[in-house]
């Protein structure tokens, strides 16, 4: 009897638990209401403009927008969403937003599933860290934005023309590039105390040659043999190549693609050999991190851990570089500029798209337009609500609101670069007031050089087998060469022999053919 009673109680508890947990409580997240509205919106909803004029805000289409989250919860999301929607009503936008924070670690899976689910779609999202525009078009995940070119012409005038090309497929615009510098140069960051100790601090923020850097590193190594000074395998601006975003570098343009039209087999070039010799020299002089083939620590981590004294990275100007260093490194640093500014495909980091499962693309485009052009809309995404999540100082720079920090603010303020136009935001946690205005100034600087291959995407299909084989060989050989771990004469020769035997020449020829067609279509 007692057993039966226990079983009955357990069954009742189970049933209650299932019922309680099964019901999605709209009040529990604060975001259910908009998403329910979105689901209730008919597929054939009228264009946003008509809705704005003819209906009240409660009937406006609700667009689900991705929010980048570095943690699994953004507690202030309901308040920020409400404030944003109140603002959208105040400007009679004709569209409302449903903010959906997605944790960065789960993002690829979550986005892939939502992009396949018309019942629970994501409407607006960025492709950075997720995919590429050609791949998303190939997978039918995003729609063409061409029909909006005439509706929102100023959206196509924000950035240099070359930049838009990087988000096109067959000449059709599928994604709008996210605001950025769209170009960079190589800098070397070094601990300031070391630079002062060896007497090179006066060269801070100046342009130096590679030979001068080597002299500096020799002195630094002599003073601090316990520190390493390099550990990165991909320093493309210093290598001077445009790899079209292809990580295997099987065909590249030299001079970062500026005024360059000939695709070459980089690994067989004198330039690659020279760079390998440079790496070997760093290794022989004790400058490379220990166990480089297994060490995956980023340069700034090595510096923070007291293992590294400096490292190579990219920036669009030296002040920006120093600003980054302040955020990343616990030591005071200085930077040296090593190359000239240039832009290529690899410098377009993000773009925003309308998903192919979006039920109201017109409304989504309207919201996207506002995200690109309205500073207030932009700041809800990048900074949240003034007073709640951030405050502004007299220089126009934003800081965490009083009593708030990265752990308790409830909103991700550290990723303005993820949203469509970060340059409408305010510099965050920095004294460098020109952080965004200097970046935006680059867009209208006609003296800046861009790669001839901006927007070129290599279609591997005709040489797929060769490409796969050669990429595997590159994985096997390249890191050892770039970390100076092997004898260059012998190892590089074997590397190139294997690449030749597996068809790298065919890859380069096919790449050149496609690049010529791309250039012809451009003209």
């Amino acid at each position, binding site marked *: 009897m007692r057993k039966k009673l226990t079983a009955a109680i357990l069954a009742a508890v189970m049933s209650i638990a299932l019922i309680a947990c099964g019901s999605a409580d709209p009040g529990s997240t604060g975001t259910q209401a908009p998403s329910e509205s979105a689901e209730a919106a008919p597929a054939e909803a009228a264009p946003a403009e008509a809705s704005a004029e003819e209906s009240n805000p409660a009937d406006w289409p609700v667009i689900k927008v991705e929010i980048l989250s570095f943690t699994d919860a953004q507690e202030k999301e309901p308040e920020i969403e409400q404030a944003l929607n109140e603002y959208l009503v105040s400007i009679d936008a004709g569209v409302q937003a449903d903010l959906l924070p997605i944790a960065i*670690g789960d993002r690829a899976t979550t986005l892939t599933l*939502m992009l396949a*689910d018309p019942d629970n779609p994501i409407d607006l999202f960025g492709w950075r860290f997720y995919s590429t525009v050609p791949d998303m078009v190939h997978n039918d995940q995003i729609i063409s934005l061409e029909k909006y070119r005439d509706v929102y012409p100023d959206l196509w005038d924000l950035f240099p023309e070359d930049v838009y090309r990087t988000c096109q497929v067959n000449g059709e615009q599928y994604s709008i590039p996210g605001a950025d510098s769209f170009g960079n140069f190589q800098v070397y960051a070094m601990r300031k105390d070391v630079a002062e100790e060896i007497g090179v601090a006066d060269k801070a923020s100046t342009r130096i040659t590679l030979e001068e850097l080597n002299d500096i590193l020799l002195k630094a190594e002599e003073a601090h043999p316990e520190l390493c000074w390099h550990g990165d395998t991909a320093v493309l601006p210093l290598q001077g190549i445009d790899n079209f975003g292809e990580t295997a570098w099987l065909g590249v343009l030299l001079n970062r693609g500026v005024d360059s039209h000939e695709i070459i087999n980089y690994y067989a070039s004198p330039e690659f050999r020279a760079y390998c010799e440079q790496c070997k020299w760093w290794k022989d002089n004790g400058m490379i991190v220990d166990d480089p083939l297994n060490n995956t620590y980023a340069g700034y981590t090595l510096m923070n*851990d007291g293992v590294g004294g400096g490292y190579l990275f990219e920036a669009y100007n030296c002040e920006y570089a120093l600003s980054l260093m302040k955020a990343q490194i616990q030591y005071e640093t200085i930077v040296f500029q090593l190359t000239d500014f240039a832009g290529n495909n690899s410098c377009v980091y993000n773009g925003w798209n309308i998903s192919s499962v979006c039920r109201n693309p017109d409304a989504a485009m309207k919201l996207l337009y506002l995200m690109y052009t309205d500073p207030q809309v932009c700041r809800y995404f990048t900074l949240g609500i003034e007073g709640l999540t951030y405050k502004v100082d007299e220089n126009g720079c934003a800081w965490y609101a009083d009593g708030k920090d990265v752990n308790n603010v409830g909103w991700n303020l550290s990723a303005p670069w993820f949203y469509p136009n970060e340059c409408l935001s305010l510099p965050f946690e920095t004294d460098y007031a020109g952080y965004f205005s200097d970046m935006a100034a680059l867009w209208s600087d006609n003296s800046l050089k861009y790669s001839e291959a901006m927007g070129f995407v290599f279609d591997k299909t005709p040489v797929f087998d060769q490409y796969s084989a050669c990429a595997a060989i590159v994985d096997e050989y390249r890191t050892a060469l770039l970390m100076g771990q092997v004898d260059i004469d012998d190892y590089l020769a074997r590397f190139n022999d294997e690449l030749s035997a597996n068809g790298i020449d065919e890859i380069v020829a096919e790449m050149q053919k496609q690049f010529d067609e791309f250039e012809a279509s451009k003209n």
Partner: protein
Amino acid sequence: MAGKGRGFRIFSNIVMILLSFAAVMPFILLVVSSITREEVIARYGYSFVPRAIDFAAYRYLFMSSNRILKAYGMTFLVAFIGTSCNMLMTMFAGYLLSKRDLPGRNFISFFIFFTMLFSGGMIPSYIIWSRLMKVGDTIFGLICPNLMLSAFNIILMRTYFTSNIPYELCEAAEMDSCSEAGILFHICLPLSKPMIATLTLFSGLAYWNDWINGLYYLVRRKDLFTIQNVLNTMQSNVQFLKDYATASLGEFAQSIPSLGVRMAIAVISIIPIMVIYPFFQQYFVRGIVVGGVKG
């Protein structure tokens, strides 16, 4: 002869001690690494004796302690409900398939076995469960997909019933007017305790360790996350921030100890299983041996 036996026992014990030591060593390294300062590991590598003790990783985890405790509660609830449902269905299905006179028995067995070889893949499964079964953002999303019915468990159960319960016993009960349910509950199940305990452990472990369902089916209801979901998301975020540590990611990346967090996450998530496992061990061993040898 006696001396030989003694020698063998000593040898066996030494071998087993060494093997046990080899099994425990990684766990010791795990615990030690979780309390070692990040920069010490970066500089000197892993060590069984911590050069500098630091609980930063645990502090980072316990900043989310409310969330972690709640997630533990969800995990117990999901594991309890899920395992109960799983066992009920496994026992019913195993019993039915053990009946020699079940019409279409071979076809049904093949149908179940087939799912062990092929699956529909991530997106089709997601669409079925999410759009058709509407389990998205509910606790059912954690219980129903993938784990509630295991073909492997059903086959083990069926094999146990056919091999270990004498057919004549069931036949005799039937002749005494016992119903099918009566035969199952009063004869078969009491004689199948080792296998039930083993499969309960299998199923419970599967629910305890599962994070895939939460990742797929809980997009908004993060409050339903189990401990594995919380820890997995935390680990994925930490790993991402380390892998892509550029530009403004630095502030976040700098504030979390990546290696230590991963180690601490592993320590925290296995503690409950370590506590529970010894209670099941005797059944577990017997169940596996019987199921394996006679299956």
